[in-house]
């Protein structure tokens, strides 16, 4: 952050104007479909990005720098693309799925109600991108590659809409924190209204993404 003694540069003025335009669009989209924004946490600090439909590479890169700057200060910024049409999932970003025992590497934390599906194991700094009503993508800050999908409010919001996705929790490879397999099976059967179909033995990454796309539709 710098002071204002020299005023704003032409580039900063352009960035500010464009971001206010995005903010205007953001609030219109929010008021049109507030449920799409439920994944945003309270008091979120947001860096808006132009949509892929109307790309502005210069603004995208400048705003990514702002997000990195915020991260360097130890704060969290959420990247949110405005003007995005409904589209089938964030799979365009997915490169190398991580597998444990031949199944997607997933972990679920009951206290946070968060399901995470990893695509890359890395200790490098990451940031969160929101492109989807239910799913946030964890992105490597340097390479911009997706390293994981995170689904907040999983048991409370997402799982009741999708039994196949719920069954990710039941896979042997899924790490479960704060909840047992038996508790999950019981919950699952309650959601299925007595239809206690056996859990799928295999849930592949394409199937998971297809299911997410179905949810978003």
């Amino acid at each position, binding site marked *: 952050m710098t*002071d204002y003694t020299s*005023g704003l540069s032409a580039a900063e*003025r352009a960035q500010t104007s464009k971001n*206010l335009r995005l903010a205007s669009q953001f609030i219109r989209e929010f008021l049109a479909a507030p449920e799409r924004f439920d994944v945003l946490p*309270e008091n*979120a600090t947001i860096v808006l990005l132009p949509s892929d439909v109307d790309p502005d590479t210069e603004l995208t890169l400048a705003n990514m720098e702002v997000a990195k700057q*915020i991260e360097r200060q130890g704060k969290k910024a959420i990247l949110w693309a405005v003007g995005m049409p409904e589209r089938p999932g964030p799979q365009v970003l997915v490169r190398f799925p991580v597998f444990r025992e031949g199944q997607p590497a997933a972990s679920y934390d009951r206290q946070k109600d968060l399901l995470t599906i990893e695509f890359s194991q890395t200790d490098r700094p990451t940031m969160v991108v929101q492109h989807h009503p239910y799913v946030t993508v964890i992105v490597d800050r340097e390479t911009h590659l997706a390293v994981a999908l995170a689904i907040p409010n999983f048991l409370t919001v997402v799982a009741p809409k999708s039994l196949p996705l719920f069954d990710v929790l039941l896979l042997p490879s899924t790490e479960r924190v704060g909840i047992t397999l038996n508790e999950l099976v019981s919950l699952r059967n309650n959601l299925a209204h007595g239809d206690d179909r056996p859990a799928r033995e295999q849930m592949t990454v394409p199937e998971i993404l297809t299911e997410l796309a179905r949810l978003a539709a």
Partner: protein
Amino acid sequence: MPIQVPICTVGSLCRRVCRLIRRERDFTNLLNARGDVLRIRFTTEDGNVIDYMVQYEAFIDGEYRPIVRSDSGHERPHLDVLDWNGKTTEKRWTAEGTTNNQALTDAIGDIEANWERYLDGFLRRRP
């Protein structure tokens, strides 16, 4: 068809129902690398904005300085251009009958259109 529930008055059932559909949201949009922000806070009930506040702040001398603020107010929505002490130097009321939804989007649109004028005026009034 959305559920039509009146604004809470009395009664525990009413309060319970309204809590389910009333939602407060609070966002801070970063605008540039200097740290300037647009803060947006609003409450919706059954999809309608029942109150809101939008504030454009510049990060000057290590502090966030409110430059212009619009809120739903007690009577009707208005926009205040502010000085260094946070006092109003110019007040503009929205047209009578403007909904809070419209006022909120209009306020951001106004800031988008006039932020440079508001900021330059604010800097000129620097004590």
